C-alpha cells in the first residue's frame, strides 16, 4: 500500500471537473510544461552533474567515468549506463530497499532514451580497441517527487552528460610493447551527437495533459512518454498504467511531444544556470 499515490475522491472530482472546463489545478494549459530549470555542475567530485527541477519535482544526476574493458561483442564502443534511485527522502511513498517495478521501469526508460538516441558518441569513449574504454555511469536520484519523474530523470541525465568532462588520456607503451592508458590532468567534454528530450502525457478520462503533477498522476488512467532527438526522430516510447490510448490520440501526442521537446531543447541555454539556488520553493 505504501507505494500507492492515493488521492481523495473530493480532490479527484475537483481535478476532473476543472479538466472538463479546460483548466488544470495549477492554471497551466493542457499542453504546457511546468517551469523547468537546470543547475549544472552541482557536484564537483562527479565528472558531470545536474539538478533538474520541473515545477517542484527535483532530481539530481551525476556522471562518473571509469576505465574498463568493453563488452566482447562491441570492442569499439564505450559503455553508457543509466540508473535511477527512488530514495526515501523524495516522497512518503518511497521506501528503502531493493528497487520495485516502478523504479526499474523509470530507470530503464531513462536509459533507453539515452542509449537509443546514441547521444554520446560511444566510439569516442574507446581508448584502446577491445581493451580499454570509458564506462560512463549516469546515476539519477529523485530528490523531491511532485510528478513526471520520467521527463525529469531524462532531462537530468542529458544535462549531466552535457556538463561532464572526462580526463584526457595518453597511450603509453612499455618495453614489451603492451599498451596502457595514462590519465592526464586536463579534461575534455564528452562528445555529444544528440540531445534527447522526453515529453510525458497523462490521460485522465478523455483528457490528455502534458507533464502531470503528482496529484494528476494519482488519478491518471494511462501515461505515455515519447523521447525525441534533435533531428525530430523518436528514440524511445513507454506507455504505462492501466488505461488505454486510441491510435489517433497517440498520433496527436507525437505531434505535441515533438513541439514541446523542440522548445525545451531550444531553451536549454536559458533555463540552465549554474548559479541558481536549487532548493527554492518556486514552481
Amino acid at each position, binding site marked *: *500500500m505504501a507505494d500507492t499515490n492515493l488521492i481523495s475522491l473530493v480532490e479527484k472530482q475537483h481535478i476532473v471537473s476543472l479538466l472538463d472546463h479546460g483548466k488544470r489545478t495549477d492554471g497551466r494549459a493542457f499542453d504546457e510544461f511546468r517551469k523547468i530549470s537546470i543547475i549544472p555542475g552541482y557536484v564537483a567530485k562527479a565528472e558531470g552533474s545536474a539538478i533538474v527541477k520541473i515545477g517542484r519535482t527535483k532530481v539530481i544526476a551525476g556522471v562518473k567515468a571509469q576505465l574498463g574493458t568493453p563488452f566482447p561483442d562491441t570492442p569499439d564502443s564505450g559503455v553508457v549506463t543509466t540508473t535511477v534511485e527512488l530514495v526515501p527522502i523524495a516522497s512518503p511513498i518511497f521506501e528503502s530497499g531493493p528497487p520495485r517495478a516502478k523504479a526499474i521501469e523509470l530507470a530503464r526508460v531513462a536509459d533507453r532514451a539515452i542509449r537509443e538516441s546514441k547521444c554520446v558518441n560511444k566510439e569516442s569513449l574507446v581508448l584502446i580497441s577491445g581493451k580499454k574504454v570509458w564506462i560512463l555511469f549516469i546515476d539519477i536520484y529523485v530528490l523531491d517527487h511532485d510528478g513526471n519523474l520520467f521527463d525529469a530523470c531524462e532531462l537530468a541525465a542529458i544535462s549531466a552528460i552535457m556538463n561532464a568532462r572526462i580526463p584526457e588520456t595518453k597511450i603509453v607503451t612499455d618495453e614489451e610493447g603492451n599498451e596502457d592508458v595514462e590519465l592526464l590532468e586536463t579534461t575534455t567534454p564528452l562528445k555529444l551527437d544528440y540531445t534527447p528530450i522526453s515529453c510525458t502525457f497523462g490521460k485522465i478520462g478523455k483528457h490528455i495533459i502534458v507533464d502531470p503533477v503528482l496529484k494528476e498522476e494519482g488519478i491518471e488512467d494511462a501515461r505515455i512518454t515519447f523521447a525525441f532527438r534533435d533531428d*525530430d526522430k523518436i528514440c524511445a516510447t513507454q*506507455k504505462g498504467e492501466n488505461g488505454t*490510448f486510441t491510435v489517433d490520440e*497517440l498520433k496527436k501526442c507525437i505531434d505535441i511531444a515533438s513541439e514541446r521537446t523542440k522548445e525545451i531543447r531550444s531553451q536549454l541555454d536559458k533555463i540552465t544556470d549554474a548559479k541558481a539556488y536549487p532548493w527554492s520553493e518556486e514552481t
Partner: protein
Amino acid sequence: MAKEKEKTVLITKDGTRHDGRKKEDIREIKFEVGVLDRADGSCLINWGRNKILAAVYGPRELHPKHMQMPDKALIRCEYRMATFSVPERKRPAPNRREREISKILGEALKPAVFDYLYPRSVIDVFIEVIQADGGSRCAAVCAASLAIADAGVPMKDLVAGCAAGILDGQVVLDLDDVEDKEGDGDLPFAYLPHTEEVVLLQSDGIFSQKEYKEALDMLIPASKKIYQMQRDALTNRYSRITEKVIETLDKEKTPAKSKEKKTEPAKKDSKKKADDKKDKEPAAEKAEKKKSGKRILGKKKTSPKEKAEKK
C-alpha cells in the same frame, strides 16, 4: 564478427526480408489453449521460433492481504525467461528487463479484464518464455490474454499485439531476433481490437514521426489478424471439448441400454445438461463475437466437467 554479420541483407530493395517475408508479413503463429492441467487457464504460443507458455491461476485469494483491493481484483503478471531460452544462458533470477516487462504486460492485460467482478482477489498470470526469438513480449501478451479467457475470467476483449520495426529505412512488422538485433528500431504494440484501444506501446531505436505513424497504421490490421487467430484458437478449444463430450455420451448411452446396469441417473442428467450447453456455445460464439466475456464465463462451467469426463 558480429559486425560482419550485420552486413547480411536484412531487407532487399523490393522488400524481401532475410527469411523471405515481405514488409507486412508476420511469422507463422499457432495458439494452443488449455495445454496445462493444473492451471485454471493456459495457452502455448508458437510465434515463429518463439515458444511461450502462459498460465493463469485465479481469481483467488490475494496474499499479502494488504495488497487486496476492496473494489477490484489485482492482475499480477510475471514474465520470466527460461535459462536456456536464449543463446547465452540467462541467469535464473529475474532481471530488470523481465521485471519491467512483467509490469507493462500486467498493465496491458488489465484493461481487457472485468476486474471489478472479483474484489479482494488476484488473477495471477505467469508467463514462461521457453524459447525466445524476438517479439516475445507481444507474443506473451497474446498468449496471456487467451490463458485468462481459458480460465473463464470475463473479459471485454482479447489483447492482440505485434511489433513493428525499421530495417534499412523501411517499416516492417514482427521483427525476429536477427532483425531485432541488427535493425534500427523496435516498436512493441498491443491493442484491444474490439474497442480499438492501445494497451501496450514501447519503442526503442530511431523512428521519424512519419515512420512511427506508418508503423502504427500497419500494426492495427496485423493485430486484427492475430485477434482472429486467437478467437479461432479459443473456438477450436471449446468445440473440441463439445465434440469429445458428445462422443463420450454417445458411447455411454449405447452400451447402457444393452449391457450395463443403470448408470446413476443423476450423473447422466448433469452430463446431458452440460451437453446441451456446449451444443449451444459454438453457435453463440460465432454470432456474438463481441460478448466474449459472457461467452467465456459460460465456458468455464463446462471445462471442469469436461476434465471429469476424461477421467
